[in-house]
């Protein structure tokens, strides 16, 4: 009777369920964390990125040794205690009144800080029982999705972002110092008496960073008021690689074509690329215009450096961290 084949189905079931239960227990026991989502690292990385970005953007940093300290760590790079990029006009107080406004010198110095100092000062590591494991990180300042350059080096720190890993990312909007700018009224500009359409500026180098020249209230005297070229010490600069010209018409920027007419309400703007005024000497920058005249004659020509102000542009600071 026991050999009745009907019963085997039940035995199969018994065998099956015991096998299954054994397999299940095996899996549960040998893969810890299987039934708990996420690992502890993931959540903490979001806030590691958050804190790093907060310190970089909202804090001017700190340096100190036994005798003195301050926020001007960019000038005391041997004793950096904390890295922060916010510009600060009073280096003795700990905070800045201009969060989100980044100092160029601080960014330059941060690029030169060595890897281990950077990781340690920004807290980009995990401390497991006293042993340090540094996180992978990538810090960049971008405009229109391209890294900003500073002295011809892109502002980009850390490693390339792995695509096979979860990356915690935070983006902050900041203002970065791009270079210097000077705004002129047309009647302030000086000319050589013989060439009334070509104002000349004396520019004293070295000036690194971008240079923005802005001229308003132009005096139109002919039928084809237009821009011809920029000359540096008698040598023509190239539109494109050396500079870009624009006119500002009612608040909108329009590229300044050589044939395009300039109205007297327009503001003419030149962006001169970094590296043109690199040497320590005085350059003569000549702006060749047509049918636009100036009255004040030199030499001495107008000193560009007396008019300069730092100029900033919005950019994105991105911090990415991974395990």
């Amino acid at each position: 009777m026991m050999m009745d084949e009907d019963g085997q189905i039940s035995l199969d079931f018994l065998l099956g369920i015991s096998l299954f239960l054994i397999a299940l227990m095996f899996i549960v026991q040998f893969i810890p964390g299987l039934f708990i989502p996420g690992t502890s690292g993931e959540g903490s990385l979001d806030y590691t990125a958050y804190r790093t970005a907060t310190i970089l953007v909202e804090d001017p940093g700190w340096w100190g040794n036994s005798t003195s300290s301050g926020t001007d760590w960019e000038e005391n790079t041997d004793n950096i205690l904390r890295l922060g990029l916010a510009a600060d006009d009073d280096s003795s107080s700990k905070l800045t009144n201009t969060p989100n406004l980044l100092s160029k010198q601080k960014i330059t110095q941060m690029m030169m800080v060595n890897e281990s100092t950077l990781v340690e000062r920004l807290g980009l590591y995990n401390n497991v029982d006293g042993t340090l494991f540094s996180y992978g990180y990538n810090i960049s300042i971008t405009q229109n999705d391209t890294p900003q350059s500073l002295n011809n080096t892109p502002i980009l720190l850390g490693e390339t972002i792995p695509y096979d890993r979860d990356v915690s990312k935070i983006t902050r909007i900041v203002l970065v110092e791009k270079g210097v700018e000077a705004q002129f009224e047309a009647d302030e500009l000086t000319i050589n008496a013989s060439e009334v359409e070509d104002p000349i500026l004396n520019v004293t180098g070295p000036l690194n960073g971008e240079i923005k020249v802005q001229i308003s209230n132009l005096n139109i005297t002919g039928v084809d008021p237009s821009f011809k070229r920029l000359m540096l010490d008698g040598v023509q600069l190239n539109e494109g690689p050396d500079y870009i010209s624009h006119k500002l018409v009612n608040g909108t920027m329009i590229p300044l074509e050589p044939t395009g007419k300039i109205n007297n309400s327009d503001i003419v703007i030149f962006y001169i690329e970094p590296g043109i005024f690199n040497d320590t000497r005085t350059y003569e920058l000549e702006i060749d215009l047509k049918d636009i005249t100036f009255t004040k004659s030199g030499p001495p020509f107008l000193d560009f450096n007396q008019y300069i102000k730092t100029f900033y542009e919005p950019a994105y600071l991105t911090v990415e961290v991974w395990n």
Partner: protein
Amino acid sequence: MKRFFKDEEGVSIMVEYVLLSLIAILFLMIISINSDAIFIENANDVVIENQFSDVGNMMSTMITDMYVILPANGKIEIDYTIPAKAGKDDYIINADIAMSDQIIEVISLTSGKKVRVTIGGIANTMPINGTASSSASKHVISYDSRR
């Protein structure tokens, strides 16, 4: 009665029942012996680690955010809430080693398990110290420039 012993109709059911019960009992025994390890300890460990790192990150983030607005003369006080237990452990938050190591530690009182969270260089400028126990009824971080 004789008929009762001779009748073999129910045997296979009987055997099946016995076997099934045996397996079920065996399974129950294994589970009950290991249940603590499988379902509580492992899970507890992961939960503790998650919670500790959460709490540690909360402290560190709060201190960072607080630091960037510290008044030159004045004070800040922040009330915060943390879970009284992580998993089934009481724990303490220890910030006393922040000055030297730039870390905040969250330690379990029962198992000694700990998670450390970094604070990016703030402790150099602002002295950070103190411990907080999860079972306390009120938790405050305070900073006073005049002390």
